[in-house]
């Protein structure tokens, strides 16, 4: 029992562990009570591909539009997917030899979050983008899926002059956090959102820092900030980096 209570603190650290426990308690009290803890990430888009051409060419990204059959297989709710298209998000579906294996979404003009009332504003709309809902079907998660999608997405973004991709990640998704870090992502801010029924209280390390929303029409406008580091420093190509002889 004690070990179970302490495990979030061991897994996430003292402060994040306390927030995690608080959220669990709130959820037990009422489904209308939540405490979200997000990290805001900036990921450089590398010049070099992540995969060798022979493997990269096996996975193809295709832009799909409202009404495409692949949308029905995506886990997000239909109304959420419809709202993404309304905000002009681009959905890229990944195909491995014509099999639909996953997807990623991008917004080129800021992103209206669907979990909480917040709109993320990009620091430089010409050269940055907001990515969200990267999903790989379970049977492809331990294959080419994740890296293959980012490899193709990077090429797509580079061709449009994008140098950085921003995202928000729940602090408790450690696997995704680690995967983003391997792609060169760095944390540029954090935000905490307390949902009490219709009311939302936002605290963030980026402007406007504090926001109170009492209705769906009132959203926090969070200004993402570009880090000072030169973009394009992500670890590129995986091939050859680790080819140690071992003898």
């Amino acid at each position, binding site marked *: 029992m004690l070990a179970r209570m302490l495990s979030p603190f061991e897994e996430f650290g003292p402060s994040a562990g306390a927030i995690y426990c608080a959220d669990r308690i709130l959820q037990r009290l009422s489904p209308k009570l939540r405490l979200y803890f997000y990290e805001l990430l900036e990921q450089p888009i590398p010049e070099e591909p992540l995969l060798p051409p022979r493997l990269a060419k096996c996975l193809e990204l295709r832009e799909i539009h409202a009404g495409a059959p692949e949308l029905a297989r995506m886990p997000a709710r239909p109304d959420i997917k419809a709202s993404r298209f309304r905000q002009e998000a681009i959905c890229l579906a990944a195909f491995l030899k014509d099999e639909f294996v996953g997807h990623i979404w991008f917004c080129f003009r800021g992103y209206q979050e669907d979990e909480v009332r917040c709109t993320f504003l990009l620091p430089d709309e010409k050269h940055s983008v907001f990515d969200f809902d990267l999903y790989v079907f379970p049977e492809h998660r331990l294959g080419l899926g994740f890296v*293959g999608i980012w490899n193709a997405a990077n090429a797509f973004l580079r061709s449009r002059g994008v140098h950085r991709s921003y995202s928000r990640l729940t602090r408790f998704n450690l*696997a995704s956090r680690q995967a983003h870090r391997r792609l060169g992502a760095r944390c540029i801010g954090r935000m905490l959102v307390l949902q009490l029924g219709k009311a939302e209280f936002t605290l963030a390390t980026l402007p406007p820092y504090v926001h109170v929303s009492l209705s769906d029409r009132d959203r926090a406008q969070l200004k993402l900030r570009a880090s000072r580091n030169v973009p394009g420093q992500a670890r590129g190509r995986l091939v050859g980096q680790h080819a140690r002889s*071992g003898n």
Partner: protein
Amino acid sequence: MSELQILSDYIRSETGYEGELSPELDLLEKHILDSFNIVQWAMFIQEQFKIDLEAEELVRQNLSSLSRVMALIDSKRGQGKPN
């Protein structure tokens, strides 16, 4: 150095894993490898053993343990075919 030892050394050096590394140990189940470094693992195998892996061969069944990787390498060298 045996091929098995080369594979073991790679896993230890790349992941920092210091525990027991038996040929049958499931590297994915034990979270020693994840969705990102399994591709690096495949790239290493390809380069080290001079074999060409196809995209459809980069699956759990072929890469999840040292023994499965050895079987994959053998099969690519013409001693049978996995999957």
